C-alpha cells in the first residue's frame, strides 16, 4: 500500500514533507553564457555547500540545493548569507528562489470502470 493510501492526516504530513523537500533551500542561478559548465565556477559553487540538481543549458541556469550543516543553529541567517555569497560570485548573473509547480486538476470523481470497457 502506498503512502498515499494511508490515513488522511499522515498522508497530508507526508505530502507536505515531499513538497518541502522538492523546493526547500532550492535556488536557480543564471550564469554568464561562456561560463556555463566552467569547472572552476562549479567547484566554487559546490564548496559553498550547494549541490547542482539540474543544469539547463539553453538558458545557462543551474538549479542548486543548499545543504545546511547540522551544527548551524540560526538556519535562516545561514541561508541568507550563503545565497548572497552565491549571488556575489563572479559570472553569476542572477539568483532566485525555486518556484513550486503543481498539477491543475480541480476535483476528482474517480471510479474505475470495467478494465476493458472503452468509452461510450
Amino acid at each position, binding site marked *: 500500500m502506498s503512502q498515499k493510501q494511508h490515513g488522511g492526516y499522515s498522508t497530508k504530513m507526508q505530502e507536505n514533507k515531499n513538497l518541502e523537500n522538492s523546493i526547500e533551500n532550492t535556488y536557480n542561478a543564471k550564469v554568464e553564457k561562456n561560463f556555463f559548465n566552467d569547472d572552476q565556477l562549479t567547484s566554487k559553487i559546490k564548496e559553498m555547500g550547494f549541490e547542482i*540538481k539540474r543544469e*539547463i543549458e539553453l538558458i545557462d541556469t543551474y538549479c542548486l540545493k543548499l545543504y545546511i550543516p547540522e551544527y548551524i543553529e540560526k538556519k535562516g541567517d545561514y541561508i541568507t548569507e550563503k545565497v548572497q555569497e552565491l549571488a556575489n560570485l563572479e559570472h553569476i548573473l*542572477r539568483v532566485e528562489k525555486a518556484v*513550486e509547480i503543481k498539477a491543475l*486538476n480541480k476535483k476528482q470523481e474517480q471510479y474505475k470502470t470495467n478494465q476493458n470497457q472503452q468509452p461510450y
Partner: protein
Amino acid sequence: MNQKDLKKYRKNLRVQRKEVLLNKILDNKRTNEPLEIIIKTEDNKKVKEKVAKQMQSLGKITHVFQKIPYISLVCMADDAEQIFNKINRKQTSRIFEKSFRYSLNAAKSVDLSGKFSAIPTKIISGTYRNTKSDLWNLEMIGAYKAHSNSRGNNAKIAIIDTGVDYNHDELRKNFTYNKGYDFVENSNNPMDKEGHGTHVAGTAAGKSCGVAPDATLYSLRVLNEYGSGTDADVAAAIEWAVTNNMHVANMSLGGPGASSALEEICRIASQNGLLLVAAAGNTGGVDAEYPAAFGDYVIAVAAVDSEKKHAYFSTIWETNDISAPGVGIYSSLLGGGYTVLSGTSMATPHVAGGLGLLMAKSNKPNLAEEIMHEAAEKIPYNGEYDYRWVFGSGLLRTDIMVDNFSLKGRIQRLKNIKSYKSTIKNVAKTAWRILY
C-alpha cells in the same frame, strides 16, 4: 416480499421503464439525436434473427444476444417512438411495411438501453454515435469531423506532467521506444505514479478519448506522486522538448510564482518553434498562474463545461488565449480503465491535440496558432469580466482549424510560388539590362 407485492413491484418497474424510454425519446427528438433501444423478441433463435434483419432498415443493430431473446438497435427518436407505440399497441402514424409488421408482432417489449439493462453496451462508431455520451468534449470541439482530414499522424506531443502510463491500452500505440524522460528521479522511465498525466495524455492523443489519436507522445515526468514539482524541472523538460524536436508541449500545471528561468526557457522554446500549451489555473478568480500567464510565449487554456459555460474554477486573466472542455472529462486512468476529472488541466490537452492535428500536416507553428485563434467559436457571455480574459478567442474548434489550415496552406504556397516567379522575372530583367 410476498407474491402480491412482487407483482406490484414488477408492474411499477415496467411503468418506470416505459417513462424513462418515452422521456428519452422526447429529449432526442428535440435534439435530433439517435438513441439505443433493446427489443425483446420471442424466445426463438430464428425469430430473433429475422427481427434483427428487418430492424436493420430502421437503424444500426448493435447487438444480437445469443443466450437471451434480445436485440439492441440504434435508431432515430421518431423510429424508436413508432416501434414503442406499435409494440405497446398504441396508434401509430407510420404504416409499416408488411414484412416489417412481422418483426413488430414478434417483439415483446422495448426498453431504453443502458438504464435497466445489465447487458454491456458496445462502442458505436460512425453516424449513430451518441453525442451525449462520455466523449461529449470531442464532439463539442469538432474532433470527429477533424479526423476525416487529420488524426495527428507525425505530430510529436510532449506531456510535461506526472508521467504517463504508456502501457495503458488507450495510449500504448502512441509511444515509441523513446518514451521520454523522468526528471523527478532522473531516469529514462517516465511512468506515471499519480494518474494526472495519464488522463491528460488520453485527452491529447488517446485512441478513443483523444483529439489527435495518431500523434506520437513523449512523457516528461516533472511532477512527483503528489502532483508537485519545481520550475527548474519544468524548464529542463521544455529544453528536452526543444532538443528532441517536439511540435507541441502540454503543460497541465502551474504555480502562482513567476520564475525568470521558466519564462526565459518558454521564450527560447517559442522562438524555436515549439508550441507551448498551459493550463490557465483553477483559482476561480482573477489571478495569474504561471507558465500560462507568460503571455506571447505560451498558449493559456481556460475551461468550459458541456453547456459551453465558463467553468467556475477557471482562472480569469488577460493572457488567456483559448477555451476548451474541462468539466467532467472522460479519459484514461493509471493502471487501466477510465475516469472522469475536471480542471483546466483537462482543457489543456484538447488544445495540444488540436495543434497536433495541424502540425501533422505541416510544420508551421505560427500559422497553426493563428488559425487556432481565427477558428475559435464565440461563446455567449454576459458576465462582468472582459470576454478575452475569461475565454480568450473562444471555444477551440478543431474541425474548422483543420479545414482552414489546408486552405491557408494552399493559399500561402501559391503566394510563395507567385513571389518566386516574380523574383525570377526581376533577376532575368536585371541580367538582360546588364548584358544588352
